[in-house]
């Protein structure tokens, strides 16, 4: 399968790889997917007191498109409010990365991951 240049760029130079302490009150963690399905995404956000995402980290087990989707998402959410980040749609990710139809589920997973991270953060408040 041929990947778009953007997928290859994110795959070869993934942005914001890493972990943050999930027990901290200002950190929201979203982990979605399942090993049996071939992809697991973990997205973490660090939120300021006024509800702005100041940092984001990810780790992903999955194909190149899954890695690229989560890498791109961490770039996009930084500096956004929780509401703005929660409005990011998978279609925007798929479009930006020019994902083929069989890889659309990777962008869906990324959308689920940010939603889960926001929910986790809110549940701590």
């Amino acid at each position, binding site marked *: 399968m041929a990947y778009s240049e953007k997928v290859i760029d994110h795959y070869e130079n993934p942005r914001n790889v890493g972990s943050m302490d999930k027990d901290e009150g200002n950190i929201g963690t979203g982990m979605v997917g399942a090993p049996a399905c071939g992809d697991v*995404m973990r997205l973490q956000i660090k939120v300021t007191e006024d509800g702005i995402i100041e940092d984001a980290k990810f*780790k992903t087990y*999955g*194909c190149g498109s*899954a890695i690229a989707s989560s890498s791109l998402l961490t770039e996009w959410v930084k500096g956004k409010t929780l509401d703005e980040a929660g409005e990011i749609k998978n279609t925007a990710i798929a479009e930006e990365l020019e994902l083929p139809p069989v890889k659309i589920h990777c962008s*869906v997973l990324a959308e689920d991951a940010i939603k889960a991270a926001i929910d986790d953060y809110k549940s701590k408040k």
Partner: protein
Amino acid sequence: MKTPIYFDYSATTPVDKRVADKMCECLTTEGNFGNPASSSHEFGWKAEDAVNQARKDIADLINANPKEIVFTSGATESNNLAIKGIAHFYKKKGKHIVTCKTEHKAVLDTCRQLEREGYEVTYLDPKDNGLIDLEAFKAALRDDTILVSIMHVNNEIGVIQDIKAIGDITRERKIMFHVDAAQSAGKVPIDMDELKVDLMSFSAHKNYGPKGIGALYVSRKPRVRIEAQTHGGGHERGMRSGTLATHQIVGMGECFRLAKEEMATDNERIRMLRDRLLKGLDGIEETYINGDMEQRVPHNLNISFNFVEGESLIMALKELAVSSGSACTSASLEPSYVLRALGRNDELAHSSIRFSLGRFTTEEEIDFAIEKINANIGKLRELSPLWEMFKDGIDLNSIEWTAH
């Protein structure tokens, strides 16, 4: 050294230069272009001679009679012809067929078609090393079983089934036995005098010959009858009509002749390279070899790198032409059905890579691959949340995953 490096010899092989040269002699006006069935002139006789020589070279590799070789378009057609041909011819005797879950799709899908026609098929589970449990096999046979179809060497994991033992059982029960030998001819010695096999499928392109040509061995003693699936001019003693493709057949004959001459030395060299590769990956934690390591062709190494997803690893190893699962299924997102049949969990099945080596693999290429794999497994595991959890001592099975 040119990249990408070819490590996918089980998908197909390049045509050996010596084979290509012979094929080229059978195409143009200056060459042997006649129709082997033209019995009225010299062009036909010459083409027939070339076909006969190829038939003999193929028969010689497996110690069979040239009259037992039926040319087809490849192993897929051979499998179809053997399985449907037997099932249709012997349907009055019974309608039960036994095969294995790890067979090639050309066998499995043919069996599915026969199920739609009213036949009953038992799909055996292999043991976790990929080999067939002979006791379970015996237990699956019934009075109305007419055919057993088991592959010699598995295309994904390279394990060698005990065709001798299975043949002894089927012959005693007077059940027809078909063997898909697409991946074994030229790699494993085959002696039809010793094996009680009724039909065997062969392919040229897995053996440094051209694509588009294969053969089906149909035993004469005891005599095996099959119903033709392609009708026309009655070629190949009525079993497979269609003008014989002289250049393809000559190519197949030559590559089988070379296989007979060079198999022993090729195998020894390839085994040395495979062991070198294996040793070079020794330092990587959490790797699992799929399939038995003893009953296995040296050409194949199928490894699961736990916590790394196969497709992303293939992307990382872009300088190495390898495959995850088989080439026929890697377009789908499903994990390999062969590894699933071995009882491997989905994670490990998703994490598998098949390296297949061949006649033109070099030590330099192996060393390059070792370096690339070691570097990239580390990089991908740094990216993997599963690896981090494993390192933190978290049992991944204890987590409630959100399946999607």
